[in-house]
């Protein structure tokens, strides 16, 4: 027993993260997974409108870099960043209210589900135009430099989004001015139905950093501890004014592009192979090894989170949509009210 504990301690040391960090990462990872699976189910039951983009399978790529950020640090997300929303601390009820587009959502039901954002928590609600928030986040980093603040910005995007011109312009600018930003590419091998091999003639999108004069690195995106460490180092570096990093996280989405996509463009064995690399069970295996988790503890945790989620869903579903007149608000500042039309 004592020997075992010593062993755990040493592997804990090896991993180079505090127990608190490890448990924090795991807690957010698990919460993200359970929330995501729940939302998938609710969508399939027709409980909310629009569509749903699941991030199941790639949660480590968002939870890992986000964990430990300050509120004033800014995230420019894309459409699979539920993990960033959870980890940066947007309350569950707000996340779910946004998905359900209810009156109690801070966006009043105007944004699309999965376009998670929060001013208070420093996440820019995405527009759907891919890599759009990469450009905006770079602009935030530019502002931090002008303001001489040591905040950082984090931009998330899929490998597909790196084909966009605006992405290039943003990274080029960040390189020139050594901006405090970290770029996280979630290479999940597919952009909707298009394989990464038709997205670029290079295997690793981290290589694109060479064109911008800052380092790029490709890592196992399903190892949450590794992702966190590499990202935390890059973030620390950025905070010190030493410039951007592009981190390519190799990962995989388990399900379709959105919940209406059967994803039959992918081979089943590819899916199976990647399911074996599940970031959640991998984290759990480590925690078991470290002696930080037991099956009972895990089940208790799952139950507690599920209850939280369930309670939040019930709270949200009881709230109606905004009244139609809400459509007229938030177009401009109060100086310029929109003209009402009557027929």
């Amino acid at each position, binding site marked *: 027993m004592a020997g075992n504990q010593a062993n755990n301690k040493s592997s804990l040391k090896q991993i180079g993260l505090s127990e608190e960090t490890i448990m924090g990462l795991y807690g957010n990872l698990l919460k993200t997974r359970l929330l995501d699976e729940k939302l998938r189910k609710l969508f399939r039951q027709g409980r909310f*409108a*629009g569509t749903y983009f699941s991030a199941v399978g790639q949660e480590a790529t968002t939870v890992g870099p986000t964990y430990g950020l300050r509120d004033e640090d800014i995230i420019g997300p894309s459409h699979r960043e539920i993990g960033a929303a959870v980890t940066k601390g947007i309350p569950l009820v707000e996340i779910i209210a946004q998905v359900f*587009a*209810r009156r109690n959502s801070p966006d*009043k*039901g*105007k*944004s*699309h*589900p999965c376009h998670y954002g929060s001013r208070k928590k420093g996440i820019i609600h995405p*527009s*759907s*135009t*891919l890599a759009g928030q990469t450009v905006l986040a770079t602009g935030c980093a530019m502002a931090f430099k002008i303001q001489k603040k040591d905040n950082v910005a984090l931009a998330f995007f899929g490998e*597909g*989004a790196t*084909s*966009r*011109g*605006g992405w290039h312009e943003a990274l080029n600018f960040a390189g020139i001015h050594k901006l405090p930003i970290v770029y996280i590419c979630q290479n999940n091998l597919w*952009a*909707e*139905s*298009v394989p990464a091999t*038709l*997205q*670029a003639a290079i295997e690793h999108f981290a290589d694109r950093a060479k064109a911008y004069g800052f380092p790029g690195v490709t890592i196992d995106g399903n190892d949450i501890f590794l992702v966190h460490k590499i990202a935390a180092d890059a973030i620390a570096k950025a905070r010190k004014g030493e410039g951007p990093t592009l981190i390519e996280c190799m990962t995989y989405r388990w399900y379709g592009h959105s919940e209406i996509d059967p994803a039959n*463009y992918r081979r089943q064995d590819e899916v199976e192979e990647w399911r074996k690399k599940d970031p959640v069970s991998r984290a759990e295996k480590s925690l078991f090894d470290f002696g930080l988790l037991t099956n009972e503890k895990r089940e208790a945790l799952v139950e507690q989170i599920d209850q939280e989620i369930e309670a939040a869903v019930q709270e949200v579903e009881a709230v109606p*949509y*905004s*009244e*139609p*007149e*809400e*459509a*007229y608000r938030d*177009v401009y500042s109060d100086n310029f009210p*929109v*003209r009402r*039309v009557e*027929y």
Partner: protein
Amino acid sequence: MKTTTYIEAITSAMAEEMARDESVFLIGEDIGLYGGVFKATKGLQDKFGKDRVIDSPISEVYIVGGSIGAALVGMRPVPEIQFADFITPSMDQIIQQAAKIRYRTGGQWTCPMTIRVCCGGEVGGGLYHSQINEQWFFSQPGLIVLMPATPYDAKGLLKSAIRGDDPVIFFEHKRLYRSIKEDLPDEDFTVPIGKAAIRKEGKDITIVSYGLMYHKSLEAIESLEKDGISVELIDMRTLLPWDRETIFESVKKTSRVVLVQENSKTGGVMAEVGAAISEEIFDYLDAPVTRVCGLDVPMLPFAPPLEHFFLPNAEKIVKAVKKVIDY
């Protein structure tokens, strides 16, 4: 004759034109193996190969700009913009290159290209999967802008576009893809660019519309006729160059007109139609030229009641028509 949906009409137009002319090819996101996010290109990569049905990277600048280049050297590209919301990155290529290359070269280079753009609301798409943005192209000389409302027109206009020698922005309304059907002839046919369709003759008032709004207007007419109002209904079909003659003739006859547009009101296509009517056939008007349009807020907010509130519908059209009739 075959009963055909709006989207099947589009697919078959592409298939037939590709079979007819090997310079026709397609490029866009997810259009190959996947057959397009709405399945408009279903089966075409199997039939015509990967060289002629190209799955592009997420590069709207290149999808359009590369197509223009190909058009210059003998091809007839049919690029797809997956959602009209994502046409903004291509504006530079459409406006500065496609629309002007014939002009700036004194006619030396031409750009026979048809950009298919999936557009429109009432599908729960929210701010980034509901846009149209037709007014930007409508204001650009050098472009042809089409928006069919029926399967027959979708097929016939798409064929005319592909065979023509001008750059075309071809708007397909996603709400119509599977909601309307029509019997189409088996033999080859085209619909002429630049001609509006008088869908219904009438004598009390003219309604002008296009795309989904044509169908909303049809719905409105049912109720209006019950009240004894005889409506002449025009579907513009071609937005640029728009068919002034047909519209003017109709308004000269009825002396009253309501213009229906899905997009926000200010600066929309119907502003031009309204202004031109007032400018050119002023004396024939017995009542103000009246527009029924989307709200002047970003098109369009996501939550269902907000989306509904944004969009014109039969009820709003009926009210507007009655007001104009009672004027």
